[in-house]
């Protein structure tokens, strides 16, 4: 089944959930609400007529100020049998920034979900091990959000966190020599 038919099929199965089906550059995107995303993904994965068995990519997008709902989690699904690509975009509002995890359907979603949490701050409910992945554990903020600055405003000044580390190191040194 090609991606256009698959998109119509989702609309048929989940009429409440699908908000829009878009076509650009012969690629189909289905924009859905986040509440039943796991059911939608599971349906696409397990239905023998659709058989979207490869999760190519999972990422988040910040539409800060451009759309009503701020975030979107984008799933790129591919069917090896029918060789069709389908894009599912789930809308995630800012005030309750969370969505169901799909790790138990696609094992490969584990790290991309962690990355999305790390860089955009979207919480994946039911994820087995939701920690930061690319950034250090004590990092503040989520860099891929549009309100996160590209450069720090410290300019020539030294990073304060770094100074704390130096001070702590000095204190420890004193302790050791005594």
């Amino acid at each position, binding site marked *: 089944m090609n991606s256009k038919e698959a998109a119509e099929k989702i609309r048929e199965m989940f009429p409440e959930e699908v908000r829009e089906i878009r076509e650009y*550059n012969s*690629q189909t995107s289905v924009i859905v609400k986040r509440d039943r995303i796991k059911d939608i993904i599971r349906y696409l994965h397990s239905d023998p007529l659709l058989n979207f068995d490869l999760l190519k990519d999972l990422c988040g997008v910040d539409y800060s100020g451009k759309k009503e709902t701020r975030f979107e989690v984008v799933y790129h699904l591919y069917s090896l049998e029918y060789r069709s690509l389908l894009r599912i975009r789930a809308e995630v509002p800012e005030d309750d920034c969370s969505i169901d995890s799909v790790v138990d359907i696609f094992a490969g979603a584990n790290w991309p979900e962690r990355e999305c949490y790390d860089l955009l701050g979207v919480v994946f409910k039911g994820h087995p091990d939701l920690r930061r992945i690319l950034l250090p554990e004590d990092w503040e903020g989520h860099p*891929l959000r549009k309100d996160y600055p590209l450069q720090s405003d410290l300019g020539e000044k030294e990073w304060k966190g770094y100074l704390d580390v130096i001070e702590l190191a000095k204190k420890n040194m004193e302790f050791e020599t005594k």
Partner: protein
Amino acid sequence: MPEQKGKLRKKELTINMGPQHPATHGVLRLELDIDGETVVKCTPHVGYLHRGTEKLGENRTYLAALPLTDRLDYISSMANNVGYCLAVERLFGIEAPERAKFIRTMASEMARISSHLLWLGTHALDIGAMTVFLYAFKEREWILDLFEMLTGARLTVTYPRIGGVRNDVSEEFLSSLYKFTDEFPKNIEEYETLIDQNRIWLQRTKNIGIITAEEAVNWGLTGPMLRGSGVDYDLRKYCPYDAYDKVDFDVPLGKNGDTYDRYRCRMEEMRQSARIIRQCIEKLPEGPVMTPDAPKFTLPPKERILKDMEAMIQHFVLVIKGPVTAPDGEIYSAIEAPKGELGFYFISNGTGKPYRMRLRSPSFIHASVLPLLCEGALVADVIANIGTIDIVLGECDR
């Protein structure tokens, strides 16, 4: 303690492998819980090389973000460049001229050979076959010299452009590359005589790190990792880009999905790459290497910039502002990079910069499969498993 006499005390041990471990091929850290020689739990830690390429890409024009892609998989930067240019071209509906397509195909296959040679050398070195490393690097040097001849750079080439390639190929380059494709298959045979029947090599690779076809698909693996398990999925064949639909080649498949099968797949891929390069040289059509239909993307030639006012203004506007007539849309475009599927997901909002640039890097997904491979295996096989997934941390961490 008389009651403990004759009993060995058992204790689980946590060891830290990396980030500065020569076998991790970069800055990968593995936290291994071991019970004797067996790995009980393996937790990979990545991110030591995170440079925020996606964030940087959102703040640069489409033209200016191209050199960032070199620094992802720096072993095969040519393939990354091609993937990036192709994605932008698809987003804007630009078509590169035929000659440029053939040159790109040729160059990406050169990148595949250089990447696989590095993998072969280091993977064999890690698990105890020193000689093949020296052999593989001899040919890799040759490929890098050819890259230098073509682009002026050996590693970070930035050669393809949106709408074509930077400069045309010379006759001298083509004849040297043709000579390379003549000799290279014989060299592959040489490597195979070194390790293919070697008992130590076979024992350390056969039935090590087995991934079944279902597991491989479920984990989202691509490239030789997926084909080693016998799943026939190659973007060059099933979703052809550039000139791949005009050349003839086979897609090698494995059966058991173990380290040895993946080794066989990659060796065969190198042969096929040489075959593709040969056909590209033979079929190389005449014509321009930059498309004339996209003046909003292609920088005018340097000679014109120095003499012509209009060309200088165009150059200035393109570099500073970027193309202003961007469509409002999104695209996911992927290529078969040496490591697996390298995907670019662009969201454009009508300005000269992408609203969102997402990189789907194969190394990131392949590194996540390490616990599956390592848990229950021996510590020594962890090294073989890191080698077989063939990751580059620059691409994994982005």
